[in-house]
Structures are given as C-alpha cells and as structure tokens.
C-alpha cells in the first residue's frame, strides 16, 4: 500500500467517525422527514436555540 492508499483510508475513516457522531448526536431525534412532520418548526427552533447557547 502506498501513500495515496493511506490517505484514502484516512479520509474514509474520518467520514465514518463524522457519520457515527452525527447519528449518535441525533439518536433521540425523530429521524427525519421534517417536511411531513407537524413538529418540524419546533425542532428547528430547538436546534437553533441549542446552537446559540
């Protein structure tokens, strides 16, 4: 394996970590499809409020 192989693997590893972190941080959220959800506005406001804090 050469340097490019390791670089690609490193990138993939970082992406996996980011994906797992995202899924873990949103584990208690509804899971998506905000467009069809009656609480979507609240979710957005809560996220914005949390981010501001």
């Amino acid at each position, binding site marked *: 394996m050469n340097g490019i192989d390791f670089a690609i693997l490193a990138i993939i590893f970082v992406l996996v970590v980011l994906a797992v972190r995202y899924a873990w941080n949103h584990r208690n959220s509804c899971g998506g*499809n905000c467009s069809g959800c009656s609480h979507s506005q609240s979710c957005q406001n809560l996220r914005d409020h949390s981010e501001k804090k």
Partner: protein
Amino acid sequence: MMFALAGNQNCGKTTLFNQLTGSNQHVGNFPGVTVESKEGVIRGYKENTVVDLPGIYSLSPYTNEEIVTRDFLLKNKPDGIINIVDATNIERNLYLSMQLIELHIPMVIALNMMDEVRANGGTIKIDKLQEELGVPVVPISASKNEGIDELIDTAVRTARNRQYPRRQDFCSGAVHRAIHSIAHLVEDHAERIQTPPRFAATKLVEGDEPMRNALNLSENEKDMVEHTVSEMEHELDTDREAALADMRYTFIDHLCADSVVKCGESKEHARSVKIDNLLTNKYLAIPIFLLIMMTIFWLTFGVIGSFLSDLLSEGIDLLTAVVSDALTAYGMNSVVHSLVIDGIFAGVGSVLSFIPTIVVLFFFLSILEDSGYMARVAFVMDKLLRKIGLSGRSFVPMLIGFGCSVPAIMATRTLSSERDRKMTILLTPYMSCSAKLPIYGMFTMAFFPENRALVMIGLYVLGMAVGILMGLLLKGTLFHGNPVPFVMELPNYRLPSPKSVCMLLWDKAKDFLTRAFTVIFVATIVIWFLQSFDTRLNPVSSGEASMLAGIGRWIAPVFAPLGFGDWRASTALLTGFSAKEAVVSTFAVLTGANTANMPSALASVFSPLTAFSFLVFTLLYTPCVAAISAVRREMNSGKAAVGVVFYRQVLLGLSRLPFIIWGCCLCDREDMIL
C-alpha cells in the same frame, strides 16, 4: 412579566407568537404530558415573556391541551393573557374568551385576521366589543405584522396596571342565579386553592370533576351544588352543559349583532364549497381519492420518477467508472479500490439513484396537502376509520407514515384520546414508508419493468389492507371502546405556494441525502468489510467464503419457507433493520452490481415470484430501529416496542401468499422455490 397566549386552533396563534418573539424562543414540553410548550421573550421588552399555550376551544378538561392550558393559567398565574381571536370566525372564538375572562386575570383580546375581514367587506366595532366584554380589544393581522406593536403596548400596560376584566357576569335568569349561589357557597374553598370563585362556580355547574376534587367540598356542600344545578336544569328544561353553552352563545349572538357587520362570503370560500360538493360527495369522494392517488403513483413510478431515476443512475455509473479508472491509474491497492468502488460507490450510489422518485412522489403529495385537499381526505376517511375503531384525525399521522414512521408516530400526539393514539401508533408502520421505495423500485425495475406502477400500488394497498385487518383485530381485543368525536376545520382551497412546496422538497431531499451519507454510508462499509474478508481477516476472492456469507447462511433457513433462502437475501433483510434503504445498498455490495446491471444480478438471487414474496416481506416485517425507538418513547413502554417487533412477525406468513396463489394457478412448482 409573563403573558399567556391563548386561543382556538388555527386562529394564527403561532404566527402571532413568532411575531411577538422573533427568534427568541425556547421549545419544550409541559410537565407530565406530551404537549409542547413554547416560551419566548417579547421583542423590545426584554423583561417580558410570552408562553404559547396549546390551541383549545374551551377550558373544560376533555383533552390534554385543555387541561394543560387551564392548569397553567390557574397555577402559574401569568401577569396577563393575550387572547387571540379569529375575526373571521368571531362567534366560535369568543366562546373561549368568555371563559378566559372568568379567570380574573388582566387580559387583552387580539382580534386577528382583520385584513381578511376588511378584504371581504366586513367591519367590527372595536369600541363596542371592548365595552361589552370589559377588556381591551386590539385589531391585528399577525401574518402581515399589523397592529403587533399596539398589541404589545396594550398588553404590557394592562398587566402593569393590573387592569382586570371590568365584567365577568354575562348571564341572566336561572343560569345567573345558579352560578351566583354556587359561587357564594364555594368562595372560601376557591380562595384556598387560589381560583376565582366565579370560575370555580361555572365549572361546578358544568360538572367539572377535577374542579370538584380540587375544591374538596364537604358532602353537604356537594349536595347543595347538585341541588342548585338540578333546579336550574329543571327550570330551563335542558342539561347543565347545554344551559351554560346557551347562555354564552346568547350573549355572543347579541354582541355580534351589535358590533359585527358580517362580511359577505369570500370568493375563496364559495369556490371551496363548490369543489367540496364533488370531492366530499357521499359516493364520489373515495373513488376520486383513489383515482388521484393512482394517478400520482403512475406518474411517479411509471413516468416521471422512473425516467429521472434512470437518468441519475446512468450518471452515478458514469461517475463510478471515472473514479475507478482514476484510482487504477494512481496504482491504488486492490482492497482499497474495492472498498471505494464496490463498497461505497456501489452501496451509496444505488440508494442515491432513488432520490428523484421520492422527490417526485412528495412533490405531488405536498401539492395535495398545500391545496387543502388532504384535510378533506381526513374528513372523508373518518367514516371508514370508525369501522376499525379510529377517527378521521388518525388519518393525518398515517398519511405522514407514508413518508416516515417516526414523525408519524410523533404526530399521534395531536390525538386527544389515549386509546386512539396507541392504536394509531401500532397501525402507522403498516403505511409503507418512503425508505422502502428504493427496495420496491429496484425489484420492480428488475422483475416487473412493464408493470412497475401497478406493483407499487399493489404493495401500498396491501399494506393498508393488512393495517385495516390489524385494526379490526386490535379493536376487538386490546382497544375496546369507541373513538372520540372528530371535529376539524376545513380550510379554503388555495393554489399551492411554490415556495412552501420547494421548501418541502428540499427538506425531503436533504433528509434523504443525510441518511445516505451517514447511516447507509457506514452500513455499506460494514457490509463490504464483512463480505470481503473471512474470519481470519484474509481477503476473499468470492463472497461465498466471507464472514457475511457465514452469518447469512446461519439465518437463511428462517426465510427459506418464504422462497428466498439465499444468504444474500437474508443478510440484506438484516441490514434493513438499521435503515430500510440499506437493503438496496447491501444487495449492491453483495452482488457486485452497479445500477445498470442490478436487474441481472438480482435475477441470480430471485425469481419473479420470490421477488414479489420478498417485497411483501419487506412491506410487513419489523420497522427500522428508529421507528421502534419512537414507539417505545411515545408509548412510554419497552413492551410496546417489543410487541411492535414481534406481532408483525406473525404476518410474515403473508409472504407465503404469492406462492399459495401461484400454486392455485397450477403453475410449475419449480418456479416456486429458489
């Protein structure tokens, strides 16, 4: 100071709340109930906050929302109430206003939608309203940000100066005598629990059990209250609730006759009535709905969506080929090359190609919703849903379930009856969610290319049919009783807003892309790894010798009676537990196929019959882990979540049904078993 924002549903309360607070909001839950609470700082008045209470029609304790609002107003003692009233529907809105006035809290009425009243030629005498109701009335238009500053100033001034309602007594005759005598009787009890005596008396006349319990009356006092109410009922020849409602509406009718010049029926409303004569017709409503849905499905899966998906698939294949060539040119290690191309690109790419189908489907559904037609469908479905023990209100969460079960399960919070809510939660997963669309799309493309739309429609109808059967079963077993009455406002028909449709489509696409690049991405890499190495972590040349094949063969016998005992099929179903789209990416990785040659790759695993059996299985088997978590959360019961997993398994025998039907058609038995 703290203000409570109270009013009917659909009167513009949320719009006003957003105007009052801007982005300075905090969202949470009222304690002990799954009713949302919103609180915000009034812009320009940093020390003043406003709490958005749930939309209610009265202060009687029939629903969680009504209980929460009443408890909040009595226990939290806001400094003022901002009662938002829909000026285009003033009579119904004032019914709540009169009850709020009885709470003896400084109050301002915000008369909303005045722009619509003016546009339709109506007028309202604000001074007359103020004089008769005894509270300030401020005309506003929340959506157009008109009158908001005056409303805030009036509310703050009213609360600061402790300007209580100048009038609370709107009754006469027998009702007046009953309320006043009971108020005197329970005065000390009411003051002990810090409740206005008149409000307590009115609630006792209504037969309000929570109020009766809170006052802690002696037996003698209870008898006297009942005697007084009975005398009133006898004198008026009507029951207590009707007597109070009559009293309030009599006052409201006189008030409106003096102060409201009725606007002519708006053009929008007249047009809506004409359209409803057809779309909610007793005989035509459901056939029209079915025709509309079949047209949407045909356009989505047979024409537009499939064309765009095929186009995107070709683009993804082209990109994959380019990247593969580039990696080869750079001398990439073969294992790393396989990870990137056979794993990530194949897996994630196979899922991404279905974005157009999903976006097109939701484009049409959002048009139906935005136009106001879906509200009619809920109304039309009420009669049918009652046969399985639910009301038309349950239709809305089920409709959301066609997108995703998780928000659908959460949307059941809008159902006031706990019985209806639980039953709807259990039935919603039968509405085939959009995550299964890539699976349906892939198999119909491979095995039923000429009848894609028909097979799709068949699957959705089958899901609903099984849901109905389960509803009948649950109604007769775990959920006896009748659903609550269904009251709903039908908004006027309107042209869908391009902006809101586009926003909805963007949300949908963004959500799908997020899942593809998170859950599916990780699942694809895990599948690739398990499929590319054996138990000693040596790379394998054939998937048959891999770790994944070992796992798959171990569970494959479970699915053999259903016709798809191949280890790849069972492995794909296992990954579907994390996210249904993962079934598609798993097949892509396991068969080593790209989107172009997926049909031939699947043909090595399935026959048309077993493919259809697989589709039925996918339709009915366990929901994804996110949906199961939502069930556990909303029902507050781990057993319920486990039940959702297991009770659906008994239905999996239905996957065998295609074989039974095929056998009845006396077809070649060798086709039945792979």
